[in-house]
């Protein structure tokens, strides 16, 4: 930054105090009572936004540690996104940048926060309408088309089962699918590793259901590929019934 004007040096002392009222000195000539208005408004604004997005993470950490973590967010993180609704995503970035051990967070904590954030982001994600989808066509012959809001998630912990009473002790590889259905509701589906792989294949390449399942049977070196294909087609049909697959394209 170029050399600062006098009023800017004052502004930086002002915001330094807002970011860290416990350690930064009060400003000369500014009544504490008045400064406290800003300290409270600015922190509470951030704190409420973060807390609303991460209800489970907040509970598993406990009140005091959650507060302390948010104070560190206020103090150490420089937000670069002007949109207020981006705060939860920036909080996750802050967690990822934390030096390990600094806040002594549980090993599953960032995954849990990410899982909670996905729900919010899928709810508001911009989705373009997909044209020329045949809703009732055969999923084996056509290319299955997924709901544009769908995301595949892969975590080291069973984040969807975490609660205050159930904190994971061990990693447990977990695959989830999240999407917004036709009624704009966010839904999560737990997947097994094979289904996860099947959907990944279909997402990454323009394959028909049958082509993707043949690839999958090869990968698995299954002695009876046809049984994998039959089984896989029933899974795809089930995903269509749930609204994850909206139809096929040629």
């Amino acid at each position, binding site marked *: 930054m170029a050399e600062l*004007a006098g*009023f800017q040096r004052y502004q*930086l002392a002002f915001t330094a105090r807002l970011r860290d009222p416990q350690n930064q000195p009060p400003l*000369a000539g500014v009544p504490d009572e008045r400064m406290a208005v800003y300290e409270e*408004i600015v922190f509470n*604004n951030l704190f409420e*936004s973060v807390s609303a997005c991460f209800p489970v993470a907040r509970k598993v950490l406990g009140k005091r540690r959650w507060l302390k973590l948010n104070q560190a967010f206020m103090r150490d993180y420089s937000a670069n996104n*002007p949109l207020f609704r981006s705060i939860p995503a920036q909080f996750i970035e802050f967690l990822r940048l934390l030096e390990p051990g600094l806040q002594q967070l549980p090993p599953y904590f960032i995954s849990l926060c990410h899982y909670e954030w996905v729900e919010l982001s899928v709810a*508001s994600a911009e989705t373009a309408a997909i044209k020329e989808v045949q809703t009732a066509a055969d999923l084996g012959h056509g290319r299955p088309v997924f709901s544009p809001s769908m995301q595949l998630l892969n975590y080291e912990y069973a984040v969807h089962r975490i609660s205050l009473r159930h904190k994971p002790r061990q990693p447990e590889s977990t695959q989830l699918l999240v999407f917004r259905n036709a009624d704009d509701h966010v839904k999560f589906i737990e997947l097994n590793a094979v289904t996860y792989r099947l959907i990944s294949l279909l997402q990454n390449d323009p394959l028909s259901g049958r082509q993707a399942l043949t690839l999958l049977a090869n990968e698995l070196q299954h002695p009876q590929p046809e049984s994998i294909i039959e089984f896989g087609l029933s899974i795809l049909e089930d995903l269509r019934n749930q609204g994850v697959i909206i139809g096929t394209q040629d």
Partner: protein
Amino acid sequence: MATISQIQGTGLGLKRELIPQIQSLYGQEPLANIHFVEIAPENWINAGSKAARQLDWFVERYPVVCHGLCLSLGGPSPLNVDFLHQVKTFLRQYKIPVYTEHLSYCTDGFKGKQGYLYDLLPIPFTEEAVHYVAQRIRQTQDILGQRIGVENASFYVAAPISEMSEIDFINAVITEADCLLHLDINNIYVNSVNFGFDPHAFLRRIPGERIIYSHMAGHYRQTPNLLVDTHGENVIDPVWDLLEDAYRLFGAFPTLLERDNNIPPLDVLMHEIDKIAGYQNKAAKHRPAAFAAELMAG
């Protein structure tokens, strides 16, 4: 799809909570005094398909104005030009003719980034700050290709380094930037209590010919000499008196009710909007319809 001369009469700050009520009562007598609505672009840019559908509904039916939150006209970080281009695209996409921002800052350039603090902080009233802010307003107007309005902000801390009064600062910035004034009546009152000045004397020094539109709102009385601008209460009588005085001085200008917290049902808000309309009808002077268009053209 609004033109600038349609920004007239009385309006409402659009909150998501109010949308279903407005949609169900649209076109009916109780809402007759919603002549225009205001949105914060930060809440609607890239906000998803549901929000886009809602906004489409409104721009087809009401003139819409944009009142920004995050531009940080007085902030030490560089003006966020990328964001400003997003705003420009947004204004064009929805044919929104007016964009205003606060005479405040919300960034500190921390760690070489913008350092958004997501709240409106007070700019010290110094000569250097006048030039700095005016230059950033000019830069904003150049990018948008139109004049913007700046709003007199509420604040709680007077910078000990200030070299002039708030009204001198506002006038100097507006003159140097050649921009418009988005007059917040409640903020004049809040600051008059917080810093002990006469709000009516302040009003008399406002450049009335530059008012694009105005805000009315309520505030929270934390102590007898500390008011916090929450937009969460009803408008109080001294603020109504100020509005009446302003219409007497400058002619009735477009005025909009802001309610951001503790939001009551729409019919309760309509009482306050109807009351603004009553003051406008009572005003001896009215601005001609072309006034705003002339303002924007400069």
